[in-house]
């Protein structure tokens, strides 16, 4: 039973939110009550993290409730069928497998937001160190090469010719802050647009800097672009490479991006829920919206609130409803303007130590690595999309010591994409896993969401039904999300909204003293 002011409508303002980004804006104001209902019995929605057993339950849920989740075709496999796999796998709860292992660039607006809302104190951040690229056909076993991710790396690299290094440095100098504006956030958009025009990354690198072909794929990997270099726009790529470079060293030497320990986005989502609760909001798991009735046309009526029937048979009246398409009852959903990608989560029996070298003296031990497999390196055409594998060491708390979790993704849904991810996982283990490395357990699924080109704007209707965009499919945290949340917050707060209050939560007196 919900608190009486939620049932009877005693107080003036209501907002019902169902999506995990929305709860951040939870403590909106004393005059607004926030009720957050979540159809799932677990926290985090599309960003949840699971034990092995929970992951299996999730896979069944996704397959049985087609259309109710931004996921489909989920399947769990236990190793390769060999008997020793069963004994190497630890207890279910020794794993925390994340649906949102995104890395967070040090320059992401998310970090200052987590700090201003003070929830960063409940999170633990770790470093994502090296980028690797798969190159087939080279002699010997070594098929993964470290992508030189900084100027120092380029100087030290012994694979790149002096001539190529010169072209690369010219490119990096060109896009550096002195050339294209000191701050990557604002201001230099027009000059970047003039500079790159509509060129693809390939055209831009070749025509303007004569960067040799073999360096295009490594540069693409630094953008985390999910299409081939030919299909990646130079504008997109330059913005992302700038972000990569500008993020280096911000929180310590030798790395520029972060992972959140214990399951990435799942943790952020949980501290968000907690912030909502601390701010006086109510969070209810295992409760969805069964039907939604808009108020009658007659606007003179005092009670112009939306009526919701919840799955626990309670009726709620609210001024605003906020949610992603999947949170609304079937009848109120819109057709999904979405992209689909294939993803997998694999637990492997190797610590893959060679992928986590110390990247700078005095820096933290990296816990994450990015491994890119260009389409061509997996035997596909040059314009085939790359496979990315985010590798998380056991230091992330996601797997027991001696094992790693591989998060695979490719912008190609279905069995074709899964086959390529699988091939990439095998190549990775052969290259870096040692003789006995194997996949102990894996989860494969298709994810629906927002690709690089789609709008992150929320749709706010006159009836005060606010639809959040589909979750981002980006492999790095997408800052557009913060603007989305802010738009929603402003829509609800109306005149009460002032910029400096957004996501700024005060401590209770004495709450955090030394």
């Amino acid at each position, binding site marked *: 039973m*919900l608190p009486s002011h939620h049932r009877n409508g005693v107080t003036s303002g209501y907002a019902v939110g169902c999506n995990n980004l929305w709860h951040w804006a939870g403590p909106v104001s004393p005059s607004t009550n926030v009720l957050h209902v979540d159809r799932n019995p677990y*926290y985090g929605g599309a960003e949840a993290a699971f034990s092995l057993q929970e992951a299996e339950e999730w896979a069944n849920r996704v397959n049985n409730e087609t259309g109710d989740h931004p996921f489909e075709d989920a399947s769990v496999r236990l190793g390769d069928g060999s008997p020793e796999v069963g004994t190497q796998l*630890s*207890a279910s709860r*020794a*794993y925390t497998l994340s649906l949102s292992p995104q890395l967070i660039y*040090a320059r992401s607006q998310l*970090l200052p937001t987590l*700090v201003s809302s003070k929830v*960063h*104190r*409940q999170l*633990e*951040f*770790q*470093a994502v160190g090296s980028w690797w690229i798969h190159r087939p056909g080279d002699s010997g076993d070594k098929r993964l090469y470290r992508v030189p991710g*900084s*100027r120092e790396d*380029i100087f030290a690299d012994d694979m790149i010719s002096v001539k190529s290094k010169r072209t690369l440095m010219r490119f*990096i100098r060109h896009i*550096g*802050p002195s050339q294209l504006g000191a701050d990557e956030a604002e201001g230099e958009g027009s000059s970047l647009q003039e500079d790159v025009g509509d060129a693809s990354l390939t055209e831009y690198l070749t025509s303007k800097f004569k960067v040799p072909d073999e360096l295009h794929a490594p540069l693409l990997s630094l953008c985390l672009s999910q299409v081939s270099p030919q299909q990646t726009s130079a504008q997109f790529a330059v913005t992302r490479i*700038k972000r990569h*470079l*500008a993020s*280096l*060293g911000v*929180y*310590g*030497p030798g*790395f*520029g991006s972060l992972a959140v320990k*214990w399951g990435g986005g799942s*943790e952020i989502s*949980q501290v968000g*829920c*907690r*912030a909502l*609760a*601390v*701010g*006086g909001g*109510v*969070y*209810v*798991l295992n*409760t969805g919206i069964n039907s939604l009735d808009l108020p009658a046309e007659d606007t003179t009526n005092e009670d112009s609130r939306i009526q919701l029937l919840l799955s626990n048979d309670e009726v709620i009246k609210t001024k605003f409803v906020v949610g992603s398409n999947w949170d609304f009852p079937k009848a109120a959903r819109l057709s999904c303007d979405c992209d689909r990608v294939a993803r997998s989560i694999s637990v492997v029996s190797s610590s893959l130590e060679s992928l986590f070298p110390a990247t700078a003296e005095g820096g*933290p*031990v990296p816990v994450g690595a990015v491994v890119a497999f260009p389409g061509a390196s997996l035997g596909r055409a040059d314009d085939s999309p790359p496979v990315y594998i985010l590798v998380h060491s*056991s*230091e992330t708390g996601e*797997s*027991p*010591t*001696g094992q790693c979790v591989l998060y695979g993704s490719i912008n190609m849904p279905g069995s074709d994409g899964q086959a390529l991810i699988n091939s990439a996982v095998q190549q990775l283990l052969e290259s870096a896993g040692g003789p006995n490395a194997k996949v102990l357990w894996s989860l494969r699924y298709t994810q629906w969401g927002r690709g690089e080109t789609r709008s992150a704007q929320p749709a706010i209707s006159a009836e005060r039904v606010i639809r959040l965009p589909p979750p981002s499919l980006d492999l790095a945290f997408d800052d557009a999300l913060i603007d989305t949340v802010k738009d929603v917050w402003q829509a609800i707060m109306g005149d009460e909204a002032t910029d400096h209050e957004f996501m700024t939560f005060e*401590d*209770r007196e*004495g*709450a*955090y003293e030394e």
Partner: protein
Amino acid sequence: MSESTSANTAKPSSSVKLVLLGEAAVGKSSLVLRFVNNDFQENKEPTIGAAFLTQKCSLPTRTIKFEIWDTAGQERFASLAPMYYRNAQAALVVYDVTKPSSLTKAKHWVAELQRQASPGIVIALVGNKLDLTNDANEAAGEAQPEAEHESSPADGDEATEETQEEPDVSNGDARKVPTREASAYAEEEGLLFFETSAKTGHNVVDVFTAIANAIPESSLKSGRGAGAGTGQTSLSGGRPAEDSRVNLGERGAATAKEGCAC
């Protein structure tokens, strides 16, 4: 968030994450308010406004800095998020001595802790609102028991002692949960056990002192645990030099030159 040595004393200092659990309105936040601010509010609203509070507890050989996580009411309509339990080294499971159903609920939370939390977690079962019973006055004369605590998390002896001292329900006071019933349960499950009054302050500091004493030194001193599930380490002092943690507060420390983007 953690420190290995405090500045003005030689005593080692360790942070301990403590979580609060229990039915709504049993006085979880009031107990913490009494412990942290030595304050009590008669008609306290349900908890909002603080993610966690901190308070130091000085022992003869070391200082324990409690980081006390309140449920913020999240226990009402959902199970608590996994992160709430993670790395918790201690838990206070509170019930109301005037409300039998709250002890049932407390048992549920103890089971949940045994399922979700680190195996070595120190759990204290606390019957609050002792001021509403006839034991309130007699209780004031009790001996302070915490000095007897060594590092045993199961504190059956002390609980039994208390049982013998205190009479059960009589004179029509508001007590509905006999001390014996709760202490027997606590002994069975290896929990510390106290009856308290957040209103008068009776036994409140004692609970926290007993918890501080019950936390094994090894779990405070040891370094990082071996991967997932071992918990207990990220909040403790004396972390090994090789660390993977990134401190967001250190932004700018190493950024005189922003990497290679010169």
